């Protein structure tokens, strides 16, 4: 038995970062790229949808919100599997040839975090007080303008939701493993590398990669809060 893998993981993380290990740099950038892109597309879809759900009173609104909250519990493997079945050669979207590509991984993660982002957007907007809504309407905003204004106003809470979504995307392994295939040099990302190294008992390397992943998440977090504070 060699030393403590957690301590060694820290040392190794520092080592990998200092030496800018090209493989690690590559998969880190890929992770970031895929999860940021997925978060971006998911936000593009989920924020307006969430705002619409928040805005309009309709029958079954409560059920929709409950469903969204339930979908927080959607296992990543299931999402991965379903996306895989769609993108697979013989699946309905096989012709897109997205399976085992970063593009497919973006699709999978986008789908994975949409319910979360929608649900959190609804919650974030619910924090906006009714009089502000009335004010926006009274000022003559049309629907789109209303949605944009209200999201801008709740930007701190919405951003917290987006961050949570990004965190879920970059930390998850189920969908990217199934849809991406963890192909070295093509679709390997931090989490699949961690899973692989764990299965190979390279615990300290796993922990090192985990630390790098957290560092990346922290960076995104700080970057976003700087943007926000402007």
């Amino acid at each position, binding site marked *: 038995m060699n030393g403590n893998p957690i301590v060694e993981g820290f040392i190794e993380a520092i080592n990998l970062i200092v030496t800018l290990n090209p493989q690690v740099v590559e998969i880190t950038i890929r992770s970031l790229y895929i999860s940021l892109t997925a978060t971006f597309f998911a936000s593009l879809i989920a924020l307006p949808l969430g705002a619409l759900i928040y805005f309009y009173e309709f029958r079954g609104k409560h059920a929709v919100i409950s469903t969204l909250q339930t979908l927080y519990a959607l296992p990543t493997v299931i999402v991965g599997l379903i996306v895989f079945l769609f993108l697979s050669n013989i699946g309905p979207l096989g012709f897109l040839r997205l399976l085992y590509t970063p593009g497919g991984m973006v699709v999978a993660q986008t789908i994975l975090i949409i319910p979360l982002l929608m649900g959190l957007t609804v919650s974030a907007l619910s924090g906006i007080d009714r*009089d*502000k809504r*009335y*004010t*926006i*309407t*009274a*000022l*003559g*905003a*049309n629907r789109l*303008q209303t949605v944009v*204004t209200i999201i*801008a*106003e709740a*930007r701190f809470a919405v951003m917290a939701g987006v961050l949570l979504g990004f965190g879920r995307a970059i930390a998850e392994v189920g969908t990217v493993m199934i849809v991406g295939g963890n192909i070295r040099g093509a679709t390997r990302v931090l989490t699949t590398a961690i899973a692989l190294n764990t299965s190979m008992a390279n615990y300290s390397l796993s922990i090192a990669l985990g630390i790098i992943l957290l560092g990346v998440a922290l960076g995104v977090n700080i970057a976003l809060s700087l943007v926000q504070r402007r």
Partner: protein
Amino acid sequence: MTIIEAHNIRKSYGSLEVLHDVDLSVREGEVFALIGPSGSGKSTLLRILDLIEPPSAGELSVFGIATVEDRGRWLDLRRRMGMLFQRPIVFNASVYDNVAMGLRYRSAPGDEIDRKVKGALEAVGLSRYVGSRATDLSGGEQQRVALSRVLVTEPEILFLDEPTANLDPGSTATIEAIVTSLNREAGMTVLISTHDLMQGQRLAHRVGVMIEGTIAQTGPSREIFHEPKDRRIARFVGIQNIIPGRVVSLREGLTVVVEAGGKQILSATPPPGEEVEMVVRGEDISLHRREPGFEEAENLFPATVTAIEPTAPFVNVTVHCGCDLVALVTARRAETLGLHDGMLVWVSLQAKAVHLIPRSGAG
């Protein structure tokens, strides 16, 4: 010309009926004040008239256009109106961006926005805050930002929902002055809700009293304050004396009413029934040290002072003269009269200051 015409408006939230049987018509260029107790539905009615919320039932036409059938036109109509809310609402952005909102929604050109926003901030005395974050301003300043945000859109109808409830007298005066001048100079139609009765009186041509979800009385403020239609309105407008009585005869065009203690009181109101209540404002009752010789008031009788309660700058004086009457005199007059408990005074009261309403069942 009638600019707002509402008929039979009803509004429920879930099972709670907030408005019912609301009829209202407002003329172009008029200042109309809605007064009424908290929770009576003033804000809800203003929101409906501003087309922010649909009524549950009823007819509403704005600018002569019936709105119920045609929700497609709501946005256009709404853009010709503006509303200021009770709580100062500002958005987490610069003062400039806050004031520009309405214009941006209307896709106004950039230089026009710039000119108007700066002009409006000048007018409310907030020029130096143009770049500040609006949420950092004090309540009064925020309310002025909110007002300029509405005014830059040059609304033809301005709704004000208790615009000064949270403001100090200085900020209140500023806002009242702006509203008055917009009405006088730009001919803007103004609907204001307020629970400051004096504000209603100061600003409005006509006042509507909202009680429990409906407009119970409409008229010039003098009428509302001196000739309320029923007991609830009388109570709300702060009338101190509501005395049950019975009409006994008519004399020289005046109604003679006998109150419980047997005293006869003359009123200029034609009798609304046999069982009535006399409604007398405290400030219409004059007190004298001795019988005034020159007095032309139709009612004149001696009474005993039973309570003196200063409510600066006035004094509430309760006198007993068969029934109890509360008179409101200025502190200076109270001093001059040398009022004290148990003192004998003469009460004079003009017949036209005694308003009669039908006796209502409940107390």
